[in-house]
């Protein structure tokens, strides 16, 4: 690994004098990810893999990748995975989980995948109370296909298919998936988080840890919605995206727990 850092310290004595307080999880494949600079997908991949490593459940975990920029998730997460058809991750996960009830099964989906074409499979899986975790990356845009409107695109927000900004009188309001599915008795734990700051990252990881633990209880579906960014299609720098999230996104998508089990 080619690295830099203060040169006066050798790796060896580093390990004597210093202790590692953060390192990339071993469950994250050591390759460069294809995501654009600053893309939240890579960050969330990392967090999920940290939890899998810490809980030591690599062998018990099966992931389902969507069609979206994170379609390649299986190239980065060092666990068994399936790549589902666009929008069908929850159906695929149902097929896996029903046959292997003892495993941890999660889907990783974008907003177009989960909330547009896949809303039916998502709702029904949750209504059945499938004991799966849905990691929902809400970046308010179709990333992979280069910037079309998503069901979560903000009112007035530009996209390649809403050149004048999203007109709610034509396309309606952005769908708040988490609030909607929290209505369903089948959902067990529903939370919305951000990852545009170290604190946000801490909370998001905690949410993911909770979710994986709840899966052990087989009490219903867990959803962790993450407000992500899409520098390339928002036409902003990653840092600008972080501000946009604080200033715009979380107004439409309030951050925090939406449904927490009383244990």
């Amino acid at each position: 690994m080619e690295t830099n850092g203060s040169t006066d310290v050798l790796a060896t004595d580093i390990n004597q004098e210093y202790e590692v307080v953060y390192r990339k999880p071993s469950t994250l494949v050591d390759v460069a990810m294809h995501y654009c600079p600053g893309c939240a997908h890579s960050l969330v991949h990392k967090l999920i893999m940290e939890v899998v490593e810490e809980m030591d459940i690599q062998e018990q975990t099966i992931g389902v990748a969507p069609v979206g920029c994170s379609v390649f998730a299986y190239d980065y997460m060092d666990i068994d995975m399936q790549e589902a058809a666009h929008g069908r991750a929850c159906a695929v996960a149902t097929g896996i989980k029903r046959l292997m009830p003892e495993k941890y099964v999660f889907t990783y989906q974008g907003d177009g995948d989960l909330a547009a074409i896949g809303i039916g499979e998502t709702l029904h899986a949750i209504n059945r109370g499938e004991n799966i975790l849905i990691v929902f990356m809400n970046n308010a845009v179709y990333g992979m296909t280069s910037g079309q409107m998503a069901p979560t695109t903000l009112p007035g927000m530009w996209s390649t298919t809403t050149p004048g900004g999203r007109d709610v009188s034509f396309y309606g309001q952005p769908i708040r998936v988490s609030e909607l599915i929290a209505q369903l008795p089948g959902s067990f734990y529903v939370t919305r988080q951000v990852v545009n700051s170290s604190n946000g990252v801490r909370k998001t990881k905690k949410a993911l840890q909770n979710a994986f633990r709840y899966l052990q209880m087989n009490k219903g579906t867990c959803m962790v919605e993450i407000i992500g960014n899409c520098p390339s299609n928002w036409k902003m720098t990653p840092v600008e995206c972080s501000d946009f999230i604080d200033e715009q996104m979380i107004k439409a998508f309030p951050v925090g727990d939406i449904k927490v089990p009383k244990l």
Partner: protein
Amino acid sequence: MLEELIVAGFGGQGVLSMGMTLAYAGMVEGKEISWMPSYGPEMRGGTANCITILSSNKISSPILSSFDTAIVLNQPSMDKFAPRVKPGGLVLYESGTILQPTSRTDIDVIGISATAEAIKMKSPKIMNMIILGAYLHLKPVVAIESILEALKKVLPEKYHHMLPLNEQALLRGEELVNSELREGVMLVC
């Protein structure tokens, strides 16, 4: 007249727009044209290229396996396309980014440090125009005027104030080639 050209490089290097500008210029001059981009998840890094064909006759296949000219802006593209240039053809490359040009001797191989030059000119984005200028000096397949005409179409209105800058860049490219040639690069034919 028939010129079969490929332009290849990294995503952000303006590869596609260079080919497109050339195509528009060809149209301005009433030539037959075809512009075939490689498409895909460029957005997520990776390389881009486009095949541009200018011809006085109807063009059959927009897809080619060998080229009269290859303009390459990064090493992978050099490695991939230099071998596909027809004998007697031309490879024009960005010498700041590409450290190992092809070793072929049956073609002209000319490097231009366009990136450095563009930075000098305080607008890295026009690197591709410098290259284009160099190319047109070596192979005047269209007139500079036609390029400027074309740029009006390619560039959105709000960038039209950049036209002069682009013209400078084209000329700068010309000069760079000349100096290169003065420095004794031999043209095969």
